[in-house]
């Protein structure tokens, strides 16, 4: 081989490295100027990427609102979005880039539980706040020194709520169908227990995800002749299960979670297939204007809970830093001030701009966002979330009740 070619190849490699270095250096110089950087790690590609697009849009709206109101202590906020590629290994690399190069004060988004667990140690070791929309109970049990705030209710709480609602709808024989997840078995146990306590019965089956047909799984479920089927899956598998349930002639009730039955799902199946399916969505109180305002700004009829949460991740970070007495913009300041602006006796508001102005005026504020009232327990779990119970009617999710 000619040495010339090898040299060209190596030079090209060095060139790429140099480009990377100079591009990131220019960014870290910029940081000595004004903007406060808020990182987002969201699923934009890969298996869990159904919400990534709306998550990014919601965050941009929060950024624009905060900056429109004058920013945080005269400094604009800037969101920096990285893709988790639906893969914890890629997410760890993305988190290192955000923490080490962009020097973000917090990382928001983080949707898949494995992604959140993978980047959590980097966050608390790097003194960066982590605001997550993952539900797995294990996350807030990590030794996170207060840096983790979870805006999604735990999966256990969601499972309990779905079980109770299914009983309320008059179900007697419940069957759970869902892929293997950290919570699949506990969903079966929780909902079965609720049904048995109400005089009914419960069972379940955990399947393999990524399949293009669940006919045999549906056959096994229908053998128990259930009148309620709880769907514990995500959008890709739930859409296939719903179609196979329809083909099999199942006419009973169908209940799912916000990660499975949502706008993305109603687009993925014909209207007759999703008709009547219920979804449980973590949400703000019924009279909250925040959610309506956000979907208005996004020009959408409705929005999934996770994108609402990402909007709130940006707002919460900004408000916490606006309150920080030290005036320093870093992860520890976010951690130490976040509870003070989202709970307590201060002025209650569900408007981010109003909340920011109140904080800057020096008064106490209690911000409630489109994703919920946002009060956090000591371990970082969110408290007092409401649930919107929605039902698919003619291909659109329609509100049934808030509770």
């Amino acid at each position: 081989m000619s040495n010339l070619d090898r040299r060209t190849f190596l030079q090209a490699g060095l060139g790429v490295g140099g480009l990377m270095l100079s591009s990131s250096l220019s960014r870290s110089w910029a940081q000595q100027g004004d903007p406060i950087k808020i990182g987002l790690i969201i699923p934009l590609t890969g298996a869990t990427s159904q919400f990534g697009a709306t998550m990014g849009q919601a965050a941009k709206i929060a950024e624009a609102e905060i900056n429109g109101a004058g920013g945080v202590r005269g400094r604009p906020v800037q969101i920096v979005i990285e893709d988790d590629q639906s893969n914890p290994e890629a997410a760890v690399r993305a988190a290192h880039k955000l923490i080490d190069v962009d020097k973000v004060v917090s990382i928001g988004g983080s949707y898949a539980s494995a992604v959140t667990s993978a980047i959590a140690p980097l966050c608390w070791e790097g003194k960066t706040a982590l605001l997550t929309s993952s539900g797995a109970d294990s996350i807030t049990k990590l030794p996170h020194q207060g840096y983790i705030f979870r805006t999604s209710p735990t999966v256990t709480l969601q499972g309990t709520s779905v079980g109770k609602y299914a009983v309320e709808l008059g179900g007697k024989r419940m069957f759970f169908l869902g892929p293997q997840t950290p919570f699949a078995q506990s969903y079966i146990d929780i909902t079965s227990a609720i049904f048995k306590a109400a005089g009914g019965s419960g069972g379940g089956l955990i399947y393999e995800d990524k399949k293009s047909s669940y006919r045999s799984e549906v056959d096994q479920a229908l053998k128990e002749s259930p009148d309620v089927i709880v769907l514990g899956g995500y959008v890709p598998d739930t859409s296939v299960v719903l179609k196979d349930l329809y083909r099999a002639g199942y006419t009973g009730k169908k209940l799912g979670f916000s990660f499975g039955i949502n706008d993305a799902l109603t687009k993925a199946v014909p209207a007759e297939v999703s008709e009547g399916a219920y979804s449980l969505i973590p949400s703000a109180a019924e009279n909250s204007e925040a959610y309506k305002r956000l979907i208005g700004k996004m020009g959408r009829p409705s929005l999934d809970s996770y994108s609402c949460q990402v909007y709130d991740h940006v707002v919460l970070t900004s408000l916490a830093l606006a309150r920080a007495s030290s005036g320093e913009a870093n992860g520890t300041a976010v951690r130490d001030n976040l509870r003070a602006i989202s709970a307590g006796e201060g002025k209650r508001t569900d408007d981010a701009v109003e909340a920011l102005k109140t904080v800057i005026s020096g008064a106490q504020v209690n911000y409630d966002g489109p994703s919920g009232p946002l009060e956090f327990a000591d371990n970082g779990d969110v408290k007092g979330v409401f649930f919107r119970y929605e039902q698919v009617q003619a291909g659109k999710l329609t509100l049934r009740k808030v509770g």
Partner: protein
Amino acid sequence: MISYLIFVGTIAGFYSLLSLGLVKAWGQGGLVNLGLVGFVGLGAYTSALLSGAGYPIWIDWIAASAVSAAVGVALCFVVRNLRGDYLAIVTLGFAEILRLAETNEKWLTKGSDGISGIVAPLKNHLGDNFAVFYLVLTWVLVGIVAFVLNWLLRSPFGRALRAVRDDEQVAAVAGKSVLRLKLQAFGIGAALSGLGGALYAHFTSYIAPDVFITQLTIYIFLAVTVGGYTRLAGAVIGSLALIALLEATRFVAALVPGLDAVQIASLREFAIAVTLILVMQLRPDGAFRMSNERSGLGASRPGPDACYGKKAVLDDGT
């Protein structure tokens, strides 16, 4: 920025170990292991579980390599008579089965929750210096492995192995123990994957089944192919090129105006894939092509590849 480069350098070392293992098994032995990531996971879980049970880290890492090697040798033995493309599908499926087991055997692996808090060596003592220490440790290991492999490849064992790769029948006629050579090559490759996995687990302190997906196997194959799949130096250069590409695209894609987040992310993955295709077109043999490595048994004879059916690819360029 420096701490980011240190981190990226460490990951490059981790990729290099996997690439060296692949060069050994595929480049030198002709054995296509598309289940590479399965052995990475096996090593990572072995080491994490042993370390959780209180064993010291050096034992965990040796055990991780040993378990991966043993499973690799066993798998290779079972499929010893299969053609190359069949070996590819069997190893690919095997990795998928391992991922299923990691996901479902919660009593052992904690399922898809993953294992958190895997201890890193000396992290408490070193504090801020830990990152540099781990970078050096990783690359020292890469150096040792490359040195040993290089010595092996130059030894009679290495020549015999290449003879098997180039033509099994000729090698067998020449009195080489084809099976033993294959098992050794595959086992060494699996052991290095396992060691890489263990290094990764203790570095990031968290593993889950979703870490070990086929995407990583593809990346390593591309790294090795770009570097020149038969060469040790190619494995390391290819790994460095890979990580540079993976990370540089982050910065470059974000500069394109007028795109939404999904489009930026898609553009980044598109750029990664297209760059790899372009490099392969410009340098089909990789940065370091096969050279100075006669097996002595017909490597110079451009014949049909015994491991890949009896048919060369259709040459439509003439």
